[in-house]
């Protein structure tokens, strides 16, 4: 009946928050930006040493077998600091997909690599569509004992830092899932607006690939696995909204004009209060949706979270005033993240349209 975090969940969340406050501050983010939006040392800590990515990997594959709420809590903390690590791509997108779709030894091996701290990415042909597979798929053909893939995937999130990339492709006239080792693939860095989560263009030209699904890919299982990614993306956006609000509160508590802090003006207070209301709304829906994994609740959570992430970031720039428009201050990093994620798995409008279709019947 109630929805309360367990003491283990609170402990995990608070430890993550503490670690990232220490390791993903403004200066460290700037260094990561110079390094292409990736902090290898931080990734080693959270992926290999602390085992964050093992959270949702089943126990039989070397993971902790915890649930979506745990993943969401960690994603929220990553979002709060814009942690430049491929946690979402690896633990929230790739791992559930492998768990649901891959079979046999490949499943075990790939999940064990994630649990041990290797990064993974998923080459979605259409990440901005409600159905991220709804684009042109690479094609795979048999080659010797294995497979070779041809095709281009325009933007693979966190592709560059991944040890391997999961590639949905068409094979034998159907959909199949392949794993491509990073070393075998060609990735071209893209100039994305999100400086802390880079994407890369994946070029596959007869690239060696391992087919990892059972003989027939179960599209239902595939879509079910994507629910974790949709949910945790919303959690990350909630975290980003909270992070940029906290940053703004700290700034306006110090900034003096007319002989008083600008935080003391009611016009400013009310705007911050309203942001908190919106953040809590989205957060509550994320936590609730994590329990039942209801697709409509997740779509709704995604819509609210992406909207509040943008609102919080734009308000941060406004309330920082002149300096909010400078490269030196951090609000723009959140503003960039908000817009870069606003269209993942569909826009907020499209997510709400899923809810409307369910309540009102499909649109004419």
């Amino acid at each position: 009946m109630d929805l309360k975090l367990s003491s283990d969940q609170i402990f995990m969340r608070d430890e993550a928050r503490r670690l990232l406050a220490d390791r993903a501050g403004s200066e460290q983010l700037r260094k990561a930006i110079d390094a292409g939006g990736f902090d290898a040392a931080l990734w080693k800590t959270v992926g290999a040493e602390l085992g964050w990515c093992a959270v949702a990997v089943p126990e039989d594959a070397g993971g902790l077998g915890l649930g979506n709420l745990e993943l969401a809590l960690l994603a929220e903390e990553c979002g709060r600091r814009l942690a430049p690590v491929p946690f979402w791509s690896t633990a929230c997108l790739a791992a559930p997909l492998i768990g649901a779709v891959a079979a046999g030894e490949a499943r075990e091996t790939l999940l064990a690599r994630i649990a041990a701290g290797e990064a993974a990415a998923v080459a979605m042909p259409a990440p901005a569509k409600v159905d991220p597979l709804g684009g042109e798929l690479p094609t795979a053909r048999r080659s010797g004992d294995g497979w070779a893939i041809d095709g281009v995937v325009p933007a693979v999130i966190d592709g560059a830092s991944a040890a391997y990339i999961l590639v949905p492709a068409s094979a034998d006239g159907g959909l199949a899932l392949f794993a491509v080792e990073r070393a075998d693939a060609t990735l071209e860095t893209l100039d994305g607006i999100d400086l802390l989560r880079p994407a890369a263009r994946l070029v596959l030209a007869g690239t060696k690939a391992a087919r990892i699904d059972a003989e027939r890919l179960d599209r239902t299982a595939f879509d079910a696995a994507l629910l974790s990614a949709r949910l945790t993306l919303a959690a990350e956006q909630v975290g980003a909204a909270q992070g940029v609000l906290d940053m703004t509160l700290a700034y306006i508590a110090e900034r003096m004009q007319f002989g008083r802090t600008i935080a003391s003006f009611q016009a400013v207070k009310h705007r911050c209060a309203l942001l908190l209301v919106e953040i809590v709304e989205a957060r509550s829906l994320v936590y609730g949706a994590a329990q039942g994994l209801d697709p409509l609740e997740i779509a709704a959570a995604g819509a609210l979270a992406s909207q509040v992430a943008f609102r919080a970031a734009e308000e941060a720039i406004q309330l920082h005033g002149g300096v909010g428009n400078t490269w030196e201050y951090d609000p723009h990093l959140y503003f960039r993240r908000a817009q870069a994620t606003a269209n993942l798995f569909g826009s907020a409008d499209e997510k709400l349209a899923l809810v409307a279709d369910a309540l009102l019947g499909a649109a004419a």
Partner: protein
Amino acid sequence: MSLELFRAEIAGWMAANLTGRFAPLVDRGHAGDGDALPELRKEWERRLAEGGWTCPGWPREHGGRGLSVAEQVVFQEEYARAGGPGRLGHIGEGLLGPTLIAFGNEDQKRRFLPGIREGREFWAQGYSEPDAGSDLANIRTRARRDPQTGDWQVTGQKVWTSLAHLSDWIFVLARCEEGSVGPKGLIFLLMKLDQPGVEIRPIRQIGGGAEFNSTFFDDARAKAGDVVGAPGDGWKIGMALLGFERGISTLGQQMGFARELELIVGIARENGAAARPAIRARIARAWAGLRAMRYMAMRMLANDPEPQVQLESLGYKYHWSNWHRDLGRLGMDVLGFSGAIANDDPRVEKLRQLFFFTRADTVYGGTNEIQLNIIAERGLGMPKEPRGPGNMGKA
């Protein structure tokens, strides 16, 4: 008993009782319709009492069932799901009763609790005044002690006294120390409404109904034994009373919201509004907000919630009241022009009342503006609003 069995028991009781002569009460008497069918609703309160369903959250020693929070929530949900009418006994059961249990003396508990529990005596709330709205501590109603009898003689005006014309008693915050300001020098009194010196005048609301009143006191009396706490403790007791209201009834309230949204969805599908993209988006957004509200309440109602959740819950009133106000407008927009003209369809009248009454949701119980102050100051630690000279009141 498991919660599910308990749920079934309540649903069964409601189905067996909210029928026959009580059937006209289904879905009646809620906000905007609060003065509907008063005599039948008083009888309904007595029926509830016979079934043991009044005051189920009170401790057993005071005649309640001592239900847990989870069980009370289930009761509220099932009551709302069955279309249970607005509770005329709510102020006694949910506000005054818990206050007397916490602060009343034995004599007061013995005299007042049974009447509330048995659905015999109904209470009104005398807090707001013409000059004490958001600034509630700016109370002017005076209480003077009659040295002969020890009774308190009360003069002044209270407003928004909900359903005072259907009530037997009123609790009143009044100023008992001459020259005191703000929250100091107040007294919490229990007063009979049917007495010389009390005049009740209805206030007609924007929707046409009159659930609220102005209540005028002209040397009306509170008996010497009808002071709760000590003279001067009124603010403390009056604020504690408001604290009892939070939470429990929330999920039942949401069940009512869900019924309203369902009604709007049904009409939209019927009259073609569901084909309009903007209406579709608003209905989906309303659904999202309601689901979020549910999980927010479930986080708040957890035993011993985290400090972070307690701070987050400061935004709950703002969230539900603005959601509901938007829903009121959405209902009328789904009806279209047919909502603007008289119509025999009772659903139209219901949505029309919703449209008007939800304007009050963001005003009573702390306006939007006060709520945002509270969220900013207590939830986000931002600086407090400056006070005018001589006003020490709390927001």
